[in-house]
């Protein structure tokens, strides 16, 4: 019964989270955006105390249910194991796939320490927080979902959208265009996929109990959980079934002991015990090995270190017919990157973002793209070659679970200057060649651009940097870089991002 409930909740959760990554209608986000926000690592980076308390209480009462019904990567691993079970012969299935193993402390706390170091380095601004995010199960799942599920969904939904559009229904229309292939992001997603899938196939919840920092953190709490599965020694005949069916390999049948720091309360042991010897109930920690005080202390210290560092960072907030060929516009390689208005600045974003790609999936204009630079690896940045950051759109700021992009409303956004437009008069068709254009000025939503007479007598764009918000409309609308007959492949007016956003 409990097992069925767990499976139901898990199915709903993974579908909902995947939907968030593939749904471009914004409907899913309206109802489900809380799900990423209660993911442990992003919540920690966001100092989302509400979510952290909720998860702590949840774990202290029920054990690591987080790993079974909230974490998408955990649920994904359960699905892999379920597939393996279905694909195996009945005999093997009955025998079970797992056996008890001792806690791999060195590995587990080694990875956790590494994670803490990466977070600290990220918060200190030394490296991008996305490196810590590489270990975050939710972000890892997000990177897989945005690289695999989104293109699949797009392909599947196009014929349906076409049919719907025929009858005037446009809900399914995908307004952000498909993003160009990003080999590095794809490689990261494929690697994550291969490692996680292989580990789950071979060793069940190995990833969760040896690598995952969220699993380790929750494991420290779940030892003391109020409710936990426990073996009734009177009923147990030591058949060993529960141990062979335990994905977390945490049941020692011989000693009737369960390692609650690794147990993800999947309830498989309870469901499989023919003698009803295992029950999920309020117990004293008797059957569990008492957690050594040292571990507990180190955990608290770790949390304090992480928390302190976060607090320190939070303080420094600042013939006829035919179509002319078009080219793929390139961004100026040395232009300073621009990040969305809620990000406060590049430093803030790169110290918080775990690179889950939720904002990238949510951007209706498709201008938010994962960066390839080492200092902001996989973290979002604005690319204005195929669209611009609409002053009225605040989607990305509302989906970020890690607080890297803080919520802003449209009115606030128009007062945040994320960068400024810079004119390259050597390639501007008006300034350099005296051709009629002014498309940047015509489409500037802030009214920051005016066409003025240049020294050579040609009209040239001039940017009022006190008004320009860096939305990139000029860069997008500039014919240079797009029109096939103009040799340059970069816009003649482009955005230089500000390191720290200015508020006007």
């Amino acid at each position: 019964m409990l097992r069925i409930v767990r499976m139901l909740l898990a199915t709903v959760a993974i579908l909902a989270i995947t939907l968030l990554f593939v749904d471009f209608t914004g409907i899913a986000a309206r109802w489900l955006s809380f799900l990423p926000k209660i993911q442990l690592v992003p919540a920690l980076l966001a100092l989302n105390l509400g979510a952290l308390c909720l998860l702590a209480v949840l774990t202290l009462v029920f054990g690591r249910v987080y790993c079974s019904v909230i974490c998408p990567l955990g649920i994904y691993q359960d699905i892999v194991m379920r597939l393996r079970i279905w694909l195996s012969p009945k005999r093997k299935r009955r025998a079970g796939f797992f056996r008890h193993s001792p806690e791999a402390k060195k590995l587990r706390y080694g990875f956790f320490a590494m994670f803490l170091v990466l977070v600290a380095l990220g918060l200190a601004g030394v490296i991008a927080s996305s490196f810590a995010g590489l270990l975050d199960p939710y972000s890892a799942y997000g990177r897989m979902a945005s690289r695999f599920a989104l293109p699949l969904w797009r392909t599947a939904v196009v014929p349906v959208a076409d049919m719907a559009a025929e009858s005037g229904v446009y809900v399914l229309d995908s307004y952000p265009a498909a993003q160009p292939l990003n080999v590095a992001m794809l490689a990261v997603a494929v690697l994550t996929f291969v490692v996680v899938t292989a580990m789950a196939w071979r060793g069940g919840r190995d990833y969760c109990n040896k690598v995952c920092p969220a699993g380790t953190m929750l494991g420290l709490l779940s030892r003391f959980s109020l409710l936990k599965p426990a073996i009734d020694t009177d009923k147990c005949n030591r058949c060993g079934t529960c141990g062979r069916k335990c994905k977390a390999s945490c049941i020692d049948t011989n000693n009737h002991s369960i390692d609650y720091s690794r147990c993800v309360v999947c309830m498989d042991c309870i469901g499989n015990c023919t003698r009803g010897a295992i029950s999920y109930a309020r117990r004293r920690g008797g059957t569990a090995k008492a957690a050594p005080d040292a571990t507990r202390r180190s955990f608290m210290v770790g949390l304090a270190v992480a928390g302190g560092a976060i607090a320190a960072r939070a303080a420094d907030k600042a013939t006829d017919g035919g179509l002319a060929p078009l080219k793929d516009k390139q961004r100026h390689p040395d232009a300073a990157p621009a990040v969305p208005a809620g990000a406060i600045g590049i430093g803030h974003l790169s110290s918080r973002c775990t690179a889950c790609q939720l904002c990238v999936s949510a951007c209706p204009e498709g201008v938010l793209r994962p960066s390839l630079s080492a200092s902001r690896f996989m973290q979002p940045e604005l690319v204005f070659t195929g669209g611009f950051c609409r002053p009225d759109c605040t989607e990305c700021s509302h989906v970020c679970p890690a607080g890297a992009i803080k919520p802003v409303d449209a009115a606030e956004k128009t007062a945040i200057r994320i960068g400024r437009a810079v004119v390259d008069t050597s390639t501007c068709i008006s300034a350099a060649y005296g051709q009629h254009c002014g498309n940047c000025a015509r489409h500037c939503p802030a009214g920051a651009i005016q066409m003025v007479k240049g020294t050579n007598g040609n009209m040239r764009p001039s940017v009022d940097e006190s008004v320009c918000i860096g939305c990139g409309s000029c860069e997008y609308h500039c014919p240079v870089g797009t029109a096939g007959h103009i040799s340059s492949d970069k816009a003649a007016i482009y955005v230089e991002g500000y390191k720290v956003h200015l508020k006007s």
Partner: protein
Amino acid sequence: MKKFDTGRRGFLRNLGILGAAGVLGACGAGVASSDGAKSGRGQGAMTKRLNGATGDSVSILGYGCMRLPTKALVSGNEADDEIDQNAVNESVDYAIAHGVNYFDTSPAYCKGHSEEAMGVALSRHPRDKYYIATKLSNFAPSTWSREASIGMFENSLRMLRTDYVDYLLLHGIGMGGMEAFNGRYVDNGVLDYLCEKRRQGIIRNLGFSYHGDVAVFDHLLAMMDRGEIRWDFAQIQMNYIDWRHAKEINERNTDAEYLYGELSKRGIPVVIMEPLLGGRLASVPGPVAAKMKERRPDDSLASWAFRFAGTPEGVLTVLSGMTYMEHLKENIATYSALEPLDAEEDAFLQRMALEILQNDTVPCTDCKYCMPCPYGVNIPGIFAHYNRCINEGTVVRDGADPDFARSRRAFLFGYDRAVPRLRQADRCVGCGACLSHCPQGIAIPGRLHAIAAYAESLRASKI
């Protein structure tokens, strides 16, 4: 301005006397009508008109070759704009089998490939089964010299796989005014050359197609009045909007009522182009459509426009560019046999014309002369989408309108579907390269900027 007032109306009066399906005798316009049968729509044979001078019996439906089917129709990839020869062959075979015998092409159509494709398709049929009309086009000044013009004509014969042309037109007379006409056709002796070819029988009928400056049109007819030249036929834009409201579409245009009257008075057979105004009369505003359907529920909206264009007896043939087989079948049905408009229906269409004009549509006929825009803008595609939305009533500017959200979606998503982002109106830099090419004289950059501003206002208003 002189207004011709008897031709069309006089004809309609006659019609009343003769009865709706009466056979019409030849009259002043040099064209005689011979109805194949008197049974219902699509039940009879194609109505034919007689060109008195040469004795040609021409189908009232003329096959326009400006919008030949491309491979893009099948592949869905817009860049795939190569002509689909199999589709052309199939379409031409069907047309000829159902009595269509007038094919109108030009060296400029379909990026210059129309003549070649028609040559392939038509040469599969006996040469005396059909009439070929082609043109001496006038787009690039580099083709204006005598040598280049002769080269163009000879190339047309080669492409069309024939040694004579039944109907040859001076292309786009009136565009560029008198200067362009004299420079293109008169001063370099090209017109004399064409007359010589007519004497030799290589051109069987010599005429002109007219757009734009009415002074050139009047000048050409005056030349004929003075006996300097004989025009065997002329091609004009005529539909129930242009009949009396051409100026309302564009200040530079002239009412078809006048043009037709002048030609009819001189007995010059008239070939009709743009009977649907570039397809716009095939999809009219909802209330207009409702009234049309109320009268003839089984007839298409386009059939009204075709019946209008075919009704005057001076009309030799009505051209239609039928990209889809369905359009061809539909038009053949309308004209087999033509059921002419009666006086009451004629008045009804004039009322509908006024109603249509109240919409702020762009008078684009999708001729694509403006294309390719150097900046990649899909000008006709944008205008077509905008006009469609105007007609469907989904251009709503008032955010408080209860239909605003629905209309906004229909406009924006339909826009993105019709035209990719990087070819939309906001890419127009206003260089004006298109302006001189538009036969309708549309202020293209201005209209594009207005549409871009409207689209942007919709995108910015999240609901």
